[in-house]
């Protein structure tokens, strides 16, 4: 019984990092309609940038993190402005290939600059400090990730639903020409969503980096985050988060009780099963196709 609760707790803990990545991908998909394969690497380069600030320049933690966030937003806006916008007549596949290209360039940069060894991130909370309640343990870092993920989800959800800019984002997604006619600056909106998404990704990256830090660390969280976003419906923010938690819990339960070998595979099988039943994801509004 204790094991069962421990698995649920750990599943929630690991689901939080997937949730953050999923949030980031949904934000971009909501406006640009492109699944952003470069999400992981954008978070990666920000985390390494933070590490560089902390180790080479010896800045205090909060200034380094603040600078890293600024860098993330700037990176997101820059990528949208310089690359995505320049694509003429983009079809979805072309955009996907562009994001894959961006991903390779960023990965190459990080590996080139920092080498491939494991690095250590001087983070205020150690990766293995934890609270023990009875026989269940939950890491302090994981608790922080959980709180951050939920907080970000609530803030973003309220932002997109009730603020004026959020309304503008929805308008741009539904019909960008009409949005331009009523005076919404769609270009700025796109830039802004990329910046926000990059910021969320950076938070995810920073929270993952104390545990391990090497250039390939974001592949697995990004894939799982993407899978979670798809399962929850690519246009629904709470959906991505709930799906991510479900994914984490199912993975852990499966790993604990049935087979630890197929743990990563079962996630995708579940997703395919869910998609067969609800093709647009669990929480999305039903996908309307134009004939």
């Amino acid at each position: 019984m204790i094991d069962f609760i421990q698995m649920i707790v750990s599943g929630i803990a690991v689901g939080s990092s997937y949730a953050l990545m999923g949030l980031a991908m949904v934000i971009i998909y909501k406006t640009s309609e492109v699944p952003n394969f470069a999400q992981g690497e954008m978070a990666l380069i920000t985390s390494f940038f933070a590490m560089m600030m902390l180790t080479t320049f010896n800045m205090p933690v909060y200034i380094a993190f603040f600078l890293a966030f600024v860098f993330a937003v700037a990176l997101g806006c820059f990528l949208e402005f310089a690359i995505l916008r320049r694509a003429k007549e983009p079809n979805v596949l072309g955009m996907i290939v562009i994001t894959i290209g961006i991903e390779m360039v960023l990965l190459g940069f990080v590996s080139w600059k920092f080498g491939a060894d494991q690095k250590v991130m001087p983070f205020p909370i150690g990766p293995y400090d934890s609270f023990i309640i009875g026989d269940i343990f939950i890491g302090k870092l994981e608790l922080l990730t959980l709180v951050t993920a939920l907080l970000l989800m609530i803030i973003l959800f309220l932002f997109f639903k009730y603020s004026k800019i959020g309304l503008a984002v929805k308008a741009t997604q539904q019909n960008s020409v009409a949005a331009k006619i009523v005076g919404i600056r769609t270009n700025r909106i796109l830039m802004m969503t990329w910046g926000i998404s990059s910021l969320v990704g950076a938070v995810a990256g920073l929270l993952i980096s104390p545990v391990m830090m090497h250039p390939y660390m974001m592949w697995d969280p990004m894939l799982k985050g993407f899978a979670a976003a798809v399962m929850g419906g690519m246009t629904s923010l709470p959906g991505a988060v709930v799906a991510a938690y479900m994914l984490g819990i199912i993975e852990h339960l499966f790993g604990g009780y049935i087979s630890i070998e197929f743990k990563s595979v079962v996630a995708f099988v579940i997703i395919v099963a869910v998609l067969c039943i609800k093709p647009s994801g669990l929480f999305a509004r039903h996908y309307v196709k134009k004939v």
Partner: protein
Amino acid sequence: MKKLILALFISLAFLLSFTPNIFAEEGVTDTEIHLGQWGPQTGPAAAWGNVARGTGGYFQWINENGGIHGRKIVYHMFDDGYNPAKTKAGVKELQEGTGIFAWACGVGTSPGLAVRDYLAEKNIPWVGPAAGSMHWITPPQKNLFAVYPLYIAEAKALVKYAIEKMGKKRIAIAYLNDEYGKNGLRGAISELKAHGMEAVAQVPMEAKDSDLKPHVMQLRKSKADMVLMWTTVGHSARIVGISKAMQFAPQFMSTSTTSDFPFMMHITKGLWEGVITGTFGELPDSGYPLLEKYKKEVFDKYAAKEERWGMFYYAGIIFTEPMIEGLKNCGRNLTRERFIAEMEKIKGFKGIGPEVSYKPFDKNDIYSRQGTSQTFLVQCMAEGKAKKLTDWMDIK
């Protein structure tokens, strides 16, 4: 249809844009010996890239000190990204373009296996693959000399020590689900069976798994008092860390790829203390005279400034030392046949690694091409220092 033809034509024309090369030489001229190595400089396995760079530094040092009987070593290293297709392409390109005399080290079992048959066909010597797998010596091949101690043997040594010297009764094994990890698993299980015991848990994991809590939970459930880890550096670090957080404290043992204690202490922030590992060479700070010499003359002079002085770097030296010994013994008359004959005569050669001995080629005797069967065990102490638990032991 016209477009199809023309484009095919143009595309293939630029394949021909390379000037046809001179035929492959033997790789030896009056003043040069061409040696090659592949290594994962990019990709998920890039942390093992320093093996190839270590060999490069070593060869530079040899060249500065007169070369080998007046010949300088020309070192061809290329990046294969741990992708066997690229390894094969690179080996073929260098072998048939520039002409390589022999190949040194080479990280990775699957890249190595992709080129093993090709090199065997042409009888090109290959010394010291940087992986202790059984594939190099089952069956033994005339041109392939293995230096890395077998994983199976190392696992046996570790388990034997745990049972006999430390009296552990419940042994669990956490392994990477590939050839490397499975070899370790096999060695451990056979040693356990020899003592009439069984493993209380066998936990596999994938290289790309980032979340190891389920694995540690299974290990904890089995109430093991010794956990043998046969997985990557990052995974081992995380297993130790998560176990500490879960208040699960068995004796951890691991393989030689994690025996770089200063580095392990750095990435686990001190939690690696007390772990026992096997090793395939002298430790970074052991004060061994030849090792200190290499550090001063090879590493300080030739390594890049962000290179780390660790086991992987001088592994490139350990696995090449026998080759250089063989080349030296050939004198000026250097042919592949002579080189293989001289390699077979090596007995009891010791550099900074274990003792290396070969025998004349016998396809039923793996020790004719497996040069080492020794390892010794060390335990990690505070501040990354190492305590030698045993001396070089022979395991068969």
